[in-house]
């Protein structure tokens, strides 16, 4: 069945909103959320935007301003955001089972079954229900293609009187919306294309959809053409209700501070590898090769830049973390040079294939069934008792689960999370406390 009417539901300043659900006193106040390791601003409340704090601003550059203006600063708490995201998506699933979870804070929905006159009311109902059930404010944009739904959603947030819901049903409504949308704000138009289009006097989405198909296809490739047709109201992208299995999986983190010791980096890499292998098994895949990369501080001028990576082709695809760990550690040891200050290590599992289609290699899989059972047992135990309940010796002895206990000694590679909030919805010892 083809979808003829798409809704895009987008959570407003999602990370900030998640924090505010459990800290209502922060409503109306400037709030920002920092990236992993407390590096840069990755989410801002409207009040923080009004203070001219830009996306990507390094935290150290805005520390002074934050103090002056009493900006509330949070480290990113993906455990909380992930659970709240799941709740939003589950709430939306009450309205239609045909739902695409596009990102942590956006879902496309199929509203083809509605009569035109019902759509606006339905949109309001969606918005109200999500806000009431989860506490997360959302905007809803509805139109006949995904790209137009994106346009509608953007205007639903900005346009006075729209109240967070905008439906583009008629030709006039759509034209007006396209005239109000800058070409660089169209979904799928990158910064480079936007600059080029503006030089050609194409400033708005309305100008863009008037361009000839041939020209767009030549200069902006097939994706550009798809955008053009979608702006004209011809759907080129269907809902992806089941997320396609990913082709590669990466886990990497910056260290809390630069590291010089191989053992510290090994601890970090093995922990990332276990996480990565868990993700791999969860989506039912096996990896055919793995890449390990290692970086020194690229901002330090005094040191020689050093970013190295090594790839290992596996004899046959696997999801066995024992095997992956063994290879990852040996790749790291080949790359490691003493006397350098390293800031980041990571692992990428490549060329993923479905676990069910793996060709068995006669030599390396003698104990295949046993290993699969072992991995399954590990997954079950970790799911029940937490990811830190079972570790390999190479991961080190420090327990990263007690991140809120201040007396807890931290492994040197662990992330800086100086402003982290509680995991209010996923950890019983971190629940909201009612004192009165």
């Amino acid at each position, binding site marked *: 069945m083809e979808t003829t009417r798409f809704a895009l539901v987008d959570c407003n300043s999602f990370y900030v909103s998640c924090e505010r659900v459990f800290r*209502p*006193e922060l409503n109306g106040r400037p709030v920002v959320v920092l990236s992993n390791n407390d590096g840069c601003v990755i989410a801002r409340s409207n009040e923080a935007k009004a203070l001219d704090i830009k996306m990507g601003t390094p935290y150290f550059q805005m520390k002074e301003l934050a103090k002056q203006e009493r900006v509330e600063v949070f480290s990113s708490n993906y455990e909380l955001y992930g659970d709240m995201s799941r*709740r939003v998506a*589950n*709430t939306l699933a009450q309205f239609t089972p045909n739902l695409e979870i596009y990102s942590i804070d956006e879902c496309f929905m199929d509203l083809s079954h509605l009569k035109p006159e019902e759509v606006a009311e339905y949109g309001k109902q969606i918005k109200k229900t999500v806000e*009431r*059930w*989860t*506490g997360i404010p959302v905007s809803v944009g509805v139109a006949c293609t995904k790209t137009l739904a994106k346009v509608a959603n953007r205007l639903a947030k900005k346009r006075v009187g729209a109240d967070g819901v905008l439906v583009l049903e008629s030709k006039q409504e759509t034209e007006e919306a396209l005239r109000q949308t800058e070409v660089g704000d169209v979904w799928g138009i990158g910064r480079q294309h936007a600059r080029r289009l503006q030089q050609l006097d194409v400033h708005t989405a309305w100008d863009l959809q008037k361009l000839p198909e041939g020209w767009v296809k030549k200069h902006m490739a097939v994706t550009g053409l798809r955008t053009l047709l979608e702006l004209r109201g011809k759907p080129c992208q269907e809902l992806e209700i089941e997320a396609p299995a990913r082709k590669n999986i990466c886990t990497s983190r910056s260290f809390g501070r630069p590291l010089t010791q191989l053992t510290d980096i090994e601890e970090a890499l093995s922990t990332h590898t276990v996480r990565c292998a868990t993700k791999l098994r969860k989506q039912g895949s096996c990896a055919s090769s793995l890449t390990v990369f290692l970086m020194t501080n690229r901002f330090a001028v005094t040191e020689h830049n050093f970013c190295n990576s090594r790839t290992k082709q596996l004899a046959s695809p696997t999801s066995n973390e024992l095997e992956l760990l063994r290879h990852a550690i040996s790749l790291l040891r080949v790359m490691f040079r003493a006397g350098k200050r390293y800031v980041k290590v990571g692992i990428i599992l490549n060329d993923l294939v479905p676990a069910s289609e793996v060709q068995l290699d006669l030599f390396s899989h003698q104990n295949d069934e046993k290993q699969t059972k072992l991995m399954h047992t590990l997954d079950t135990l970790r799911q029940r008792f937490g990811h830190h309940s079972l570790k390999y010796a190479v991961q080190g002895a420090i327990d990263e689960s007690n991140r809120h206990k201040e007396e807890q000694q931290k492994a040197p590679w662990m992330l800086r999370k100086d402003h982290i909030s509680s995991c*209010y*919805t996923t950890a*019983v010892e971190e*629940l*909201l*406390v*009612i*004192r*009165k």
Partner: protein
Amino acid sequence: MEAKIIQMEPSPKVVQLSEVAADCMLLFASAVRAGFPSPATDYEAEPIDLNAYLTQNPTSTFLARVEGDSMIGAHIEPGDLVVIDRSVKHTSGRIVMAFIAGEFTIKRFMLKPDGAYLVPENPKYESIKVSEPDMGRIWGVVVGVVKKV
């Protein structure tokens, strides 16, 4: 007695067992064993799910830990966990979690002719009259209490 010829029905189509064997297997809920079958297989049920008992709507349900003693009369005591469902309507008489004057609190919500009240169930504390909407808001309705004894 005169013999009569009885017309036979045409013989039924012969079905190759191997073709449908896979479908037939679905009929068995448990592994086939020689011996007395378990009489319980017909009555299989899921174990009791406390989540389902405590809330109608897990998506909108949150837990919070109680430290205060203002609702002792309603058997909500320090150390308990309260189950809060945000999708339930806060009608008069229900226990709610509210955010009032910068703090979370649990009280009984009462609509009276002269306004809305948050009423404690402990004589040590006074009722709070919610006179203006800016004072705070109701976060969710308490639908259960989890105690460990």
